[in-house]
């Protein structure tokens, strides 16, 4: 607001706080930064650019202040980007890098742009990065059996009742209000009057939390409608079954007297447009991240925010009021719908407590208090592991939330000195041949290291290696909570490191084979993004998967007493994109206050996640599922 116009916008506490920060000298410049700058001291890295012109703000070794990719081939040598990329076959990544790997600055330049801010994926060229497809309602795949009709041309149904008309187009339509819509040569006349609306529900409920929907609609404008007529027709999504009135959570409504089409959001007018003619085609494009775009004859009219959380079982409703003769009333000539589903991290369909049974199928009620659950797929079965009492148990995931133990005896018990205080935080991995278990091993002083065990046959107990696969070193005094991702030729390990300072952060390592040493990934922004120095918070329990050509790293964050599962995305394990809360409090049941300790598996059409639910009294094992398309997931 300009003082020059003599308008004063009052200041608020946030502004004052910002001033305090600035006056305190905390500002480090005005260039956008990725906030990934501080470097740890363990391992290699710390290469800097004299000019710093393309600052990737990665972490560096030796206390380096940041790593740049700009023309510095050594950094690329130390971080084999092509090897680390989530899906080397991803055509988008190839477009950037494969043509000339001697000029990595091309990728660095693009990545700097595309990781610069939460909405940076909207920048030109960023669509090639797979992480830009996460939490992006424009990056979706068609639904094989769509819940809504591809098209209904009501005019072609003249003389039919509503249900028959819909059935002809392979869908359903059910009148919902006190008066029945009718169909004539103008289309669907909604019915209704001054005291109630006529309405009908089209098709099946749709989850707008992860579904992208485009609705095209053509209205028939009422004939002879003066400035006070009530003729109206609309199409909307509603979270409730209509009665006398339709709650238009997000939709379009034609007003005859106003000669306008209104965008309705939250049952209130959010914007109005000139109604045009009977030939005007209106389109609503609803993206599950909460964005609705209005098009008029395919020309964008604006984009607006709506609340998808109210529309997890959304009904497509046609509605309106018709006081005139039917041949003069406002009507809906035609609707057409396209649906596709998207990777929206917070849109979970199922959140269920885990029930664990013994080999005979008898429920074991105390096992629900297990810790650090892990889930993995072999392509033919899903295995589930958890820790309890310093030992690790495993079983088969027979269905969502149902686990049958392979044996009531622990799959892994402490055997070596580095495990003397117990084993915990299991992470199961199947490498195409055998099951591997990575875990936290704690010695008599509670110092953690990363253990490895394997099972050569599906029914065997796990056999631990006599020494840890990765131990704390350098400035790291303890390592725990491992997550491991495998693909042919690459193992990636991310674990929580406790530093000498008492701070914790995630660190990432890789190796081509378990028989060789883990190399630390240098220049990664992961450390700074996950560093915790405040006792009022905590970050732990990472889980790394590749889904739809992008790394997705789930982890638990504690703020005060409340845990939430958050998500980071990365294309190559060097730059990371904070994607916010993925699984929060449900408000009811075993996870009503929060969730932590996630472990995810990527499947072709969904993400499944096991976790610990928080209810204020205890933590109990849970299992969540959300739709999410992927071209790089297991087909299991």
């Amino acid at each position, binding site marked *: 607001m300009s003082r020059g116009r003599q*308008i004063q916008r009052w200041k608020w506490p946030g502004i004052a706080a910002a001033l305090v920060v600035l006056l305190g000298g905390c500002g480090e410049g005005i260039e956008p930064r990725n906030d990934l700058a501080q470097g740890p001291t363990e391992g290699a890295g710390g290469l800097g650019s004299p000019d710093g012109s393309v600052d990737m703000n990665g972490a560096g070794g030796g206390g380096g202040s940041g790593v740049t990719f700009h023309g510095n081939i050594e950094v690329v040598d130390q971080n084999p980007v092509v090897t680390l990329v989530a899906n080397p076959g991803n055509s988008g990544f190839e477009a950037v890098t494969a043509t000339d790997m001697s000029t990595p600055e091309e990728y660095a330049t693009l990545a700097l742009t595309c990781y610069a801010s939460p909405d940076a994926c909207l920048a030109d060229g960023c669509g090639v990065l797979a992480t830009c497809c996460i939490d992006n309602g424009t990056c979706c795949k068609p639904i094989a059996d769509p819940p809504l009709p591809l098209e209904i041309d009501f005019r072609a149904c003249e003389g039919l009742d509503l249900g028959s008309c819909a059935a002809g187009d392979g869908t359903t339509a059910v009148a919902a209000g006190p008066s029945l819509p009718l169909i004539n040569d103008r289309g669907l006349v909604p019915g209704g009057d001054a005291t109630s609306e006529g309405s009908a529900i089209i098709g099946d409920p749709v989850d707008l939390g992860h579904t992208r929907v485009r609705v095209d609609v053509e209205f028939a404008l009422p004939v002879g409608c003066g400035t006070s007529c009530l003729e109206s027709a609309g199409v909307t999504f509603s979270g409730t079954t209509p009665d006398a009135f339709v709650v238009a959570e997000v939709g379009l409504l034609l007003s*005859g007297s106003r000669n306008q089409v209104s965008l309705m959001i939250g049952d209130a007018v959010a914007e109005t447009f000139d109604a045009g003619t009977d030939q005007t085609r209106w389109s609503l494009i609803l993206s599950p991240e909460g964005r609705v775009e209005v098009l008029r004859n395919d020309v964008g009219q604006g984009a607006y925010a709506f609340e998808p959380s109210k529309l997890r079982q959304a009904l497509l409703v046609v509605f309106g009021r018709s006081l005139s003769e039917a041949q003069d009333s406002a009507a809906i000539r035609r609707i057409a719908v396209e649906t596709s589903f998207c990777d929206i991290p917070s849109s979970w369909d199922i959140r269920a407590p885990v029930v664990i049974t013994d080999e005979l199928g008898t429920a074991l009620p105390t096992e629900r208090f297990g810790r650090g659950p892990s889930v993995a797929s072999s392509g033919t079965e899903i295995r589930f592991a958890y820790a309890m009492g310093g030992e690790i148990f495993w079983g088969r995931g027979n269905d969502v939330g149902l686990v049958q133990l392979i044996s009531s005896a622990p799959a892994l018990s402490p055997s070596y000195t580095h495990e003397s205080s117990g084993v915990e935080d299991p992470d199961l991995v199947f490498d195409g041949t055998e099951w591997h278990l990575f875990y936290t091993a704690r010695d008599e002083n509670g110092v953690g290291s990363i253990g490895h065990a394997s099972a050569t046959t599906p029914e065997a107990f796990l056999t631990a290696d006599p020494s840890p696969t990765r131990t704390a070193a350098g400035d790291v005094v303890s390592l725990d909570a491992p997550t491991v991702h495998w693909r042919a030729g690459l193992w990636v390990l991310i674990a929580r490191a406790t530093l000498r300072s008492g701070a914790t952060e995630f660190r990432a390592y890789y190796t081509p084979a378990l028989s060789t040493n883990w190399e630390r990934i240098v220049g990664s922004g992961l450390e700074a993004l996950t560093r915790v120095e405040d006792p009022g918070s905590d970050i732990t329990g990472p889980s790394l998967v590749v889904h739809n050509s992008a790394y997705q790293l789930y982890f638990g964050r504690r703020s005060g007493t409340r845990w939430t599962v958050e998500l980071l995305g990365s294309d190559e394990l060097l730059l990371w994109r904070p994607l916010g809360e993925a699984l929060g409090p449900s408000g009811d049941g075993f996870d009503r206050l929060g969730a932590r300790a996630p472990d995810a598996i990527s499947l072709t059409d969904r993400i499944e996640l096991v976790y610990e639910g928080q209810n204020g*009294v205890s933590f109990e094992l849970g299992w969540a599922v959300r739709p999410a398309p992927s071209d790089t997931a297991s087909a299991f």
Partner: protein
Amino acid sequence: MRVFVAFLLLASMSGCTLLNAPDRRLQPPDGGVDGGTGIELFCDDGLDDDQDSFFDCEDTDCAEEPACCERRTPTLDEDWTAADLSLAWVFAPTIGDPWLPARPTFDGATFVGSFESSEEPRALISNDCVSLALGGWVTTTLRSTDATGCTNDAPCDRYAGVVLSVATDLAPGSKLQDELAVTLHAGGLVLVTQADTEVARTTTGIDQNVEVEVVVRPALDDEAKPILKATVVVEGETVLEGFPMSDIQDLLATGECEQIPGLHVAVQSLGDGVYVGPLTTAKQDCANPGQFQKQVATLTGASLGFALSWRSAYVGSPALASSRNALSDVQWDLIVEGSNDPPELEPVAHVGYALGHARDTSDEGDDWSLDGWITSIGPKAGDDPPSCVGVPGGCDDNVSLREPHLLAELTEEQALRDLVLSFAREVPPAPPDVFGIQIVRPVGGPTTPVAVPAAPTLSPNDVPECTSLRDPSLIPVDPEAQRGYWLFFTCVQGAGAATEIHAVRISRALEVVLEGGGPLRRIVLTAEELGPFATAGIRSAEPLISFVEEGLRLRIWFLAQSTPGDWSLALAEARSHDLEMLAFELPEALPFPVNPILRGDSPLVRSDCLGEDCSITGIAVTRRADDPGVLRFLLARRVNLPGGGRTDQLVPLEQIWRMP
């Protein structure tokens, strides 16, 4: 001499102040002490905002703020002497064998501890929730009698302490989920923890009483989200200060905490030899703008006697004024908007509104009556009927009038000298539903009609940023309004919900005061700067101003929504020692730390409604003329009826503002 709110002047001259918030007993602000013209705007930012050398709570400007308030109302007082502790405490875990605490006496006081378990923690959890959202205190005494096997530099397996928790039980083998816990370990180590993670520590001796006080106060975090901050004092030493303890939205809001959210307080112990003494909790007894008392006389269009012709489908957006008259203690003037068509038709057709006036002269100091109202019967201003939806030919010449506000100008005896009425009005030839603001004085009684001038007092053309001006309200620039008013209004900038409240300076002659060729205007509230509760829009400011010797205090109630349709009532406050500033400037308004003060889904709003079928549609606020320490609110709500109909109610609420 015309006197506006003369009782305020009288009060100030007599040495008392009316700068009261609900349930407040104010100390005089420091204007006369530090001599500055500024105000300590932020009471917990570590800065001396008014540069009077007093920082935050040191500055008496802040004495009544939640960040600094020291007055306490006890909420729990436990001396552990009751024969049956289970009447007030849950013995947790509730599964397993019953157990009893040891209750030794030290220095004449009874302690509890040794909960018959050396294997797993046990706890006594208060049955009642303890209100903390507006600030509070927990005090107790800890004592270790046996340090055997334990040192004062490390936790050990024998301890006892006090815990603040949402939990009502304990999982076997687990500790209570601690929003904050202060625990004495047998060796003398005192740990302050959250989520069982140490956040502070200190050490004490063995066989001595260790006094512990936990102070919690509401504050806003960097994202304007309400949180509780905790300070822990052990043996007079502050071991933890301003620790962000909980989001206020995470607190319990049931039972004893229904009005002021809070937590359970608990005593948790493992092993022998460590005990917890008498335990008390208290809540702050300063500002509580969220505390309302519902009155019995809920009004409707029918009870007020308005004719159906102009209000059959809707009555709402009340304006309320209070004065004394010769016949009774209190006279109430109520003006409402109404229509013969429901507002829900607005998306499909133009709905017109008119204003009706009702007056109750029979209030003898209690509740008002349901049937004693003198009314205008028809519209006091506007057309009858005001709306013609579905009527062939319509009523295109009608001018819709909406959202009235009344400002009472009173004599020294608090009798009504006049009313100043402001309302939103359409401004032909602009399209329907484009509103400007009309201000009218005098108003007269209910049967005195008010003619609507051809041109509004303030037109949307005068305020280019706003396509329409709604929800007007007035405050005087000085106690007698001799220099005019500030006109608050909602600035509508598009078809969606408004996000800004502006104010324009109005002269005594009811003309817009100009500055630089346009109205002297200030932006008062902006939704995006208020916090999550206002993300989806704000409207309907209801300001009240108080003048005293030391300065002025402006309170602004307004409606805010976090998502479309969930309107709640919120509050912002502004203060200044500079009484002269109002001629050209408004003091900066800051949101109350615990907004909203009345949620749309609160029992008060939903009471007597079916399910969730009630919503706030408007609010009016005024002082009671017979008791300036009491605010009367009139909450307008629209109620869905079974079968599809809707009706409207005006629900009177009161808040007590204590005198010093």
